[in-house]
């Protein structure tokens, strides 16, 4: 415990937009990893699809001089998260390692946090989750499923951190960079997503976040996201 308090850890992510091909493997991996229930097409058309990691396409310029960029958009895991301040029951909070977490069993479903989030990354369970029998077999036992009426969001695959810590402890070694990687990063075929400890100088995210191409979404709002993007080279 004493040791953990001394070491400052801030998990973060760097996404290289030049490498992203918009293949959406990260989205699929995330849904499968985190037991994110799919919704019927009519619900999706109403804007009720859940996708903790979402590849958003941005078209710039007027036809025919257009350019297309993809922004894979997880929760920004802000250092100054607007969602945490407004939650009346502290169901969403920022933990010791800077990850913004959600207590599903405490959330009252007021959706204030969802309104406060400038990145629109919070998802509400309008109905209870449903899976086809074939999908039900493959639910991830490490991730709790969410009941109807609560908010859910990207956790940086926090359950993987717990697993990695346990493994490292069992093997009597320190946690290595590659031990804890979220599902989206793991699935990315072009290695556009890099994940690690922003405070640890041996981790790649630490170097990449200081890259000249590095930027964060809506930095001017002062939310201090821990997800960085590397701007595409022109």
């Amino acid at each position, binding site marked *: 415990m004493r040791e953990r308090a001394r070491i400052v850890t801030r998990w973060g992510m760097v996404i290289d937009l030049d490498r992203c091909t918009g293949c959406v493997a990260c989205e699929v991996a995330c849904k499968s990893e985190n037991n994110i229930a799919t919704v019927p097409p009519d619900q999706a058309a109403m804007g009720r699809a859940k996708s903790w990691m979402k590849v958003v396409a941005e078209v710039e310029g007027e036809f025919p001089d257009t350019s297309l960029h993809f922004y894979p958009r997880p929760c920004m895991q802000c250092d100054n998260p607007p969602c945490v301040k407004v939650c*009346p029951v502290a169901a969403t909070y920022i933990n010791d390692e800077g990850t913004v977490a959600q207590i599903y069993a405490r*959330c009252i*479903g007021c959706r204030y946090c969802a*309104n*406060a989030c*400038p990145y*629109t990354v919070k998802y*509400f369970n309008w109905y209870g989750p449903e899976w086809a029998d074939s999908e039900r077999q493959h639910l991830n036992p490490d991730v709790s499923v969410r009941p109807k009426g609560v908010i859910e969001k990207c956790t940086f695959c926090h359950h993987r951190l717990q697993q990695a810590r346990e493994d490292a402890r069992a093997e009597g070694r320190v946690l290595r960079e590659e031990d804890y990687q979220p599902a989206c990063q793991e699935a990315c075929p072009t290695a556009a997503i890099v994940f690690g400890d922003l405070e640890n100088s041996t981790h790649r995210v630490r170097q990449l976040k200081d890259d000249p191409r590095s930027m964060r979404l809506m930095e001017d709002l002062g939310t201090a996201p821990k997800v960085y993007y590397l701007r595409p080279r022109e």
Partner: protein
Amino acid sequence: MRHDVREKLARMSPDEQTLLRPLVETSRTFYISAAALGAIGLWGLYAYYLQVRYGLGRTGLNRPEYWGIYIISFVFFIGISHAGTLISAILRVAKAEWRRSITRSAELITVIVIGFGAIQPIIDLGRPDRALNIIFNAQFRSPLLWDVMSIGLYFFSCTIYLYVPLLPDLALIRDSGIKMPRLYRFLAAGYHDTPAQRARLERVIGVLSLAVIPIAISVHTIIGWIFAMTLRPMWHSTIFGPYFVMGAIYSGIGAILVAMVVLRRVYHLEQYFKDVHFDYLGRMLLLFSLLWFYFTFAEYLTVFYGAEPAEMRVFWAKISGPFAIPFWTMVLGAFVIPFVLMSRQATRTPRGTLIAGMAVVVGMWLERYNIVVPTSVNPIWELESLAHYMPSWIELSIMAATFAGFILLYMVATKFIPIVSIWEIREGRQESVKQVADRVATYLPDSSLPAGVVES
């Protein structure tokens, strides 16, 4: 009406006869309307049952339109509640004598409507079964928690503020024995209108009317802050606290006027709700229509001039985009109609104020719609703007049931308490005429002294 009750009533003063008659005599229209309103209320309960059973998916809400009809109703009903308290408290504090016949009906609106407003956010909860987490896991940085505290205090103080000035009338009903003696013995709480009790009563009313003013202002300020504390375009605005308070009082005056016209008609209160009352309240409505225009103009001009892209998307969505119809209907209802009607003496009549009052109520409902929905569907990150919002029949049923429940409870309450304060009218006749004359005399220069001489 039973024979003995009729005899007892016949022995009372004309004021008491007129004002107590609704308590002992109920028309068929009353029962029919009550049954109809009750049916709408039950329908709404059924809709809510479906929503709890199957989830908020039964509403038209979505991402990013997280808040809809329930939150609009919440702001709207709590806004209406500012009718009673503020109007009645401010008029009492200002010693406005014409208040005497209108305070009771206004205070009653307040207490009933707070209840119906306060349940709206609970209806809106995904997990109403966990509502008490707000107490067990209170997180004091959340404006929603400030809101729970201020509305709780508001409801408590407004109930007392309704009840205390009721005491002499409750004692009168108890002593007259015209209705449910045991109930009124309990409600009158041993009040006998002795000079000492009366003096204490007036002192308490004086303190309460001062205390409820800041509480009422805090309530709608905090409701405005719920929106303003987020970073969303056209919510994140410092004007929202005062803007909401002003709008709340405005819609409250509109609601009082509608209620007064109806009460005057059904209970034959022409002698109590006189043309002068409609004239004076009409002038207040006129003042607030101008204030509303001023606040709204200031807000929109600031947004337009600053021209931040995210704000401009919401701005144009309202001015000429998908929300142009609700926006311009709001301007019509909340400004044009009341301003035109109330700026002329000839239309500050019961009929004119009724139309203006209804226009304001509808316009102010739309104002809340225009605050909640256009910003919700235009999140700050443009790439996520995909939504549209169409309330489901569940939401509309619950809204209809809320209106019906409020009107029904108000109707039923007029069967238990005199809707015009009997003792305050009596006090007005017996004492205030002279007091006012004396007071006015003190405003004037002393005629016994020659001009220019200062009394030392």
